[in-house]
């Protein structure tokens, strides 16, 4: 464990008053705040060290190329990938998943093949597969989860026929907090020869990810949720798979030899990084991952488990508080409904009290409907969240209840 109050000092925005009130930031699942280390390194590069990568023949370009490629190595170590060649920088997780949809699924799936996802997917891990199915005549299968948000092994295995060529699942639901057993899922899928893509957007923030241990074929996450900047995300892909895939976009920086009529493409990961990449952001992401590793992923998980326990306890004090996703061992994401207060009404009052939560369908509309709602409120935690944040949340909800009695 760590001293969360000391950690908070590293996040300038958490020290600020927002409209005169302390910043009770309970929307880290949407995007996390940034520590000084990330802000500083990005500032420093923009001020003193900026140039394009892979192109120049001068000192600045060499140095920044070196930093950009070192960021890739940091990501490799963060995920425990076999080599840095397995790490592709993208704009975000959404682009990483689309890359797999276009460069792998469109090339390798055929009429009648099936793609299997869970009911708990974010639109980013749903819509690309719908498009693949429409274009290629494949079938999108969706395996059921429990009403409490639980992963149900028999529902998964029931849907896993040998027609399934790809299993694409989230490692942790951004609505329910449910943690999916991705290692078991991967092993089962591999038994029937399907490939596996893991959406690690939420999981990467909360637990150690080891792609060799999971043995997944692809894995995606976004930098802005792992305390890094926006505009940068990661696709991990097994080397032999990436090598077999055609480019997703074409242009500069990703070629081997170009004539007017013909081009041979560079090896991965360059093959998938067309054009000037998000250089400063990639380096910022590297710094963010280093920051998390310095604190220790195990410690981050422990701190979060404490908060989850505390949140469950405190919410019992609120009358008519209903959890949407109620597993005891879930991640720090709490969707909820209070009595019959509309989430929009709740958000107005919480907003005024300085408590930042999110409402809506959280880019998982079919899931929210499946749970019986068309909009839900969600409070989510980061490594800097405190019990006092939770207390403030509970107080604000109580106030809203008085309001809408």
């Amino acid at each position: 464990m760590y001293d969360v109050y000391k950690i908070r000092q590293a996040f300038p925005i958490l020290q600020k008053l927002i409209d005169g009130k302390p910043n009770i930031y309970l929307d880290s699942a949407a995007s996390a705040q940034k520590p000084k280390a990330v802000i500083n390194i990005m500032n420093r590069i923009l001020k003193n060290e900026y140039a394009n990568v892979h192109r120049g023949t001068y000192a600045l370009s060499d140095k920044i190329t070196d930093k950009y490629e070192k960021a890739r190595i940091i990501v490799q170590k963060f995920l425990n990938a076999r080599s840095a060649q397995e790490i592709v920088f993208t704009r975000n997780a959404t682009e990483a998943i689309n890359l797999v949809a276009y460069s792998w699924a469109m090339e390798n799936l055929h009429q009648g093949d099936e793609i299997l996802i869970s009911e708990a997917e974010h639109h980013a891990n749903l819509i690309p597969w719908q498009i693949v199915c429409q274009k290629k005549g494949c079938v999108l299968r969706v395996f059921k989860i429990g009403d409490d948000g639980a992963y149900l092994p028999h529902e998964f295995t029931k849907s896993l026929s040998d027609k399934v060529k790809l299993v694409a699942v989230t490692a942790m639901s951004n609505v329910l907090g449910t943690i999916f057993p991705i290692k078991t899922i991967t092993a089962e899928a591999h038994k029937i020869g399907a490939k596996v893509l893991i959406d690690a957007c939420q999981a990467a923030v909360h637990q150690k990810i080891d792609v060799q241990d999971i043995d997944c074929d692809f894995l995606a996450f976004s930098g802005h949720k792992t305390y890094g900047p926006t505009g940068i995300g990661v696709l991990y892909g097994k080397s032999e798979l990436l090598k077999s895939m055609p480019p997703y976009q074409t242009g500069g920086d990703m070629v081997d030899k170009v004539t007017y009529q013909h081009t041979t493409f560079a090896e991965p990961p360059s093959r998938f990084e067309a054009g000037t990449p998000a250089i400063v952001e990639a380096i910022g992401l590297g710094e963010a991952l280093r920051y998390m590793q310095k604190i220790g992923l195990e410690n981050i998980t422990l701190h979060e488990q404490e908060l989850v326990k505390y949140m469950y306890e405190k919410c019992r004090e609120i009358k008519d508080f209903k959890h949407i996703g109620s597993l005891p061992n879930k991640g720090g994401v709490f969707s909820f409904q209070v009595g019959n207060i509309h989430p929009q009404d709740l958000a107005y009052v919480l907003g005024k009290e300085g408590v930042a939560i999110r409402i809506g369908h959280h880019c998982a509309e079919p899931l929210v409907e499946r749970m019986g709602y068309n909009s839900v409120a969600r409070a989510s935690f980061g490594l800097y969240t405190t019990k006092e944040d939770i207390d403030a949340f509970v107080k604000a909800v109580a106030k809203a209840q008085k309001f809408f009695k």
Partner: protein
Amino acid sequence: MEDINVISENFSLLEDWEDKYQYLIELGEKLPPLADKYKTDEWKVSGCQSQVWLVPDYHDGKLSFEGDSDAIMVKGIIAVIMAIYQNKSAQEIKKIAVEKIFAKLGLQEHLSLSRRNGMMSMVDKIRYYADSFEK
């Protein structure tokens, strides 16, 4: 239907947001409920976090509206918007600086584009109706 000048005057007497919100809730409660037959996708204003419906009516060259929402606060805001736009010609509607009125009421955040509560979508829809009835 309350007169917007009366609403405005009442708002000016309220100091903190709690009282303003309470007053909005009261306005919402007084808003005549929309018949269920209009609570369909056809009359839904898209882009809102809550369900919002808007039904126009055209009489003697003037437009009026009925609106409703499943969220209480939103209903209050709709009541204000209704008061602003009730019984006006298309020309008049287009001249109304609704952002200024909301700013004066201290409710500007409820019309901001950044808040995706979509109340601005409702105003856009009213303006759209004004455009189409003008032709």
